[in-house]
């Protein structure tokens, strides 16, 4: 099994080295920085709208080691959110009535407090609970076999990655055997009612390109996925979110190692779509790391770019008013959110 950048001692495991790459060519001479691109649009400094999504990273531990993972997650990562922080999150959600909670990781289900936490979220009446499930976790160990029933009981919205509707590309990106296990997990989710037309048990899939290229039309990809998954495996799902790979962490390592970095950045810049800026995730999201620190988005979390207002960087100092007027921290990786039809955790935005 491949290791995380951190466990393998890769120099990009050090965040400052990732930032160095993003600050270097082609942005020294040929291409405009993201700040330079936003200025003429009157979008700099980038400001958020109302906070609607509280995204909580329950830990970097994962049963998979996907090649493109922007979290650098894996079985060798042991950063995990404690009960104290989870309780604080519940308090924040209860008081501030933020409608959506988005649970992510690693594999969020691997946090031993995962089920307890979802139950508590249900009790305080959070409108929508999203779980970013990698699917294979449902088949990884007996103790997870009943997850589909658990999700159903709490009406959890399941969002799962499936980079392709065939084994080859999926396994190349996510590891040998991942496709077969993912198919089994999807069938089990379907069996309890997830993803079926008209069902309010929502099951959405996330597609991301299997290399140094951008995704094209989301609706066209969704139609292909639906047709093929139904034909080959009798699988159903609701929406497909086509997301762009963001040039950080393991995907950045891949780009640099395969000599695709400069060309990929050029593609992102060329595909810059001003209309996508209004829909970027950081406009309505706060991302919380396992240690309780807050970021404009999951990607900034991985680059250790905490929210700019120092007086409200940790959940213990959560201040909604201040967060809603903060300045969003940006860098060249942000081009990944504004290319083409845009890209967010909910797929395209423009």
């Amino acid at each position, binding site marked *: 099994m491949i290791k995380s950048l951190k466990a393998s001692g890769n120099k990009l495991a050090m965040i400052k080295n990732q930032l160095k790459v993003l600050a270097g060519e082609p942005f020294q001479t040929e291409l405009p920085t993201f700040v330079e691109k936003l200025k003429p649009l009157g979008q700099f400094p980038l400001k958020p709208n109302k906070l609607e999504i509280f995204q909580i990273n329950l830990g970097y531990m994962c049963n998979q080691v996907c090649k493109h993972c922007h979290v650098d997650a894996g079985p060798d990562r042991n950063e995990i959110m404690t009960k104290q922080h989870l309780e604080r999150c519940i308090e924040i959600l209860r008081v501030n009535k933020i409608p959506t909670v988005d649970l992510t990781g690693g594999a969020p289900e691997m946090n031993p407090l995962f089920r307890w936490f979802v139950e508590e979220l249900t009790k305080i009446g959070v409108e929508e609970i999203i779980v970013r499930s990698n699917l294979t976790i449902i088949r990884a160990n007996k103790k997870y076999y009943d997850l589909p029933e658990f999700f159903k009981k709490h009406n959890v919205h399941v969002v799962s990655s499936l980079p*392709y509707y*065939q084994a*080859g*590309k999926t396994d190349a990106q996510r590891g040998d055997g991942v496709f077969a296990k993912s198919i089994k997990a999807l069938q089990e989710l379907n069996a309890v009612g997830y993803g079926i037309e008209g069902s309010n048990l929502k099951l959405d899939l996330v*597609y991301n*390109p299997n*290399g140094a*290229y*951008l*995704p*094209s*039309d989301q609706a*066209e*990809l969704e139609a*292909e*996925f639906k047709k093929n998954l139904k034909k080959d495996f009798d699988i159903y799902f609701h929406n497909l979110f086509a997301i762009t790979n963001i040039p950080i962490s393991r995907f950045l390592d891949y780009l640099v190692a395969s000599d695709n970095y400069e060309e990929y950045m050029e593609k992102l810049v060329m595909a810059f779509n001003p209309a996508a800026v209004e829909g970027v995730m950081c406009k309505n999201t706060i991302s919380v790391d396992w240690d309780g620190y807050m970021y404009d988005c999951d990607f900034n979390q991985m680059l250790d770019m905490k929210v700019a207002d120092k007086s409200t960087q940790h959940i213990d100092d959560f201040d909604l008013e201040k967060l809603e007027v903060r300045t969003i921290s940006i860098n060249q990786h942000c081009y990944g959110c504004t290319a083409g039809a845009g890209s967010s955790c909910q797929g395209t935005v423009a």
Partner: protein
Amino acid sequence: MEKSYYNPKDLKKFGDIAEFEPKLAEKFFDYYGEVFKEGALTAREKSLIALAVAHTEQCPYCIDAYTEDALTRGVSEAQMMEAVHVGAAIKSGATLVHGVQMMNKVKKQSM
């Protein structure tokens, strides 16, 4: 002058052909854009036709552009290669069917 006939960077300069003759270039690019829009054929089907023709024309720029286009559309490797085979079959078929012309002439002029 370049040291080789083809430079990958030239693909991005395709639009520059307007520099020497803007009116015809504009008509061409309008037409090109219109052709590839979703119509009776899907944009995906058109992209695969373009990939096959790019190979029969052996145009490195078009192969580059339409391989990337197929990748972004989630076209599988097998589908891409089948499209190339369709192009190759038509190319070789077109060559071979002219063999009949050769045979006709041979037969007419032989005792």
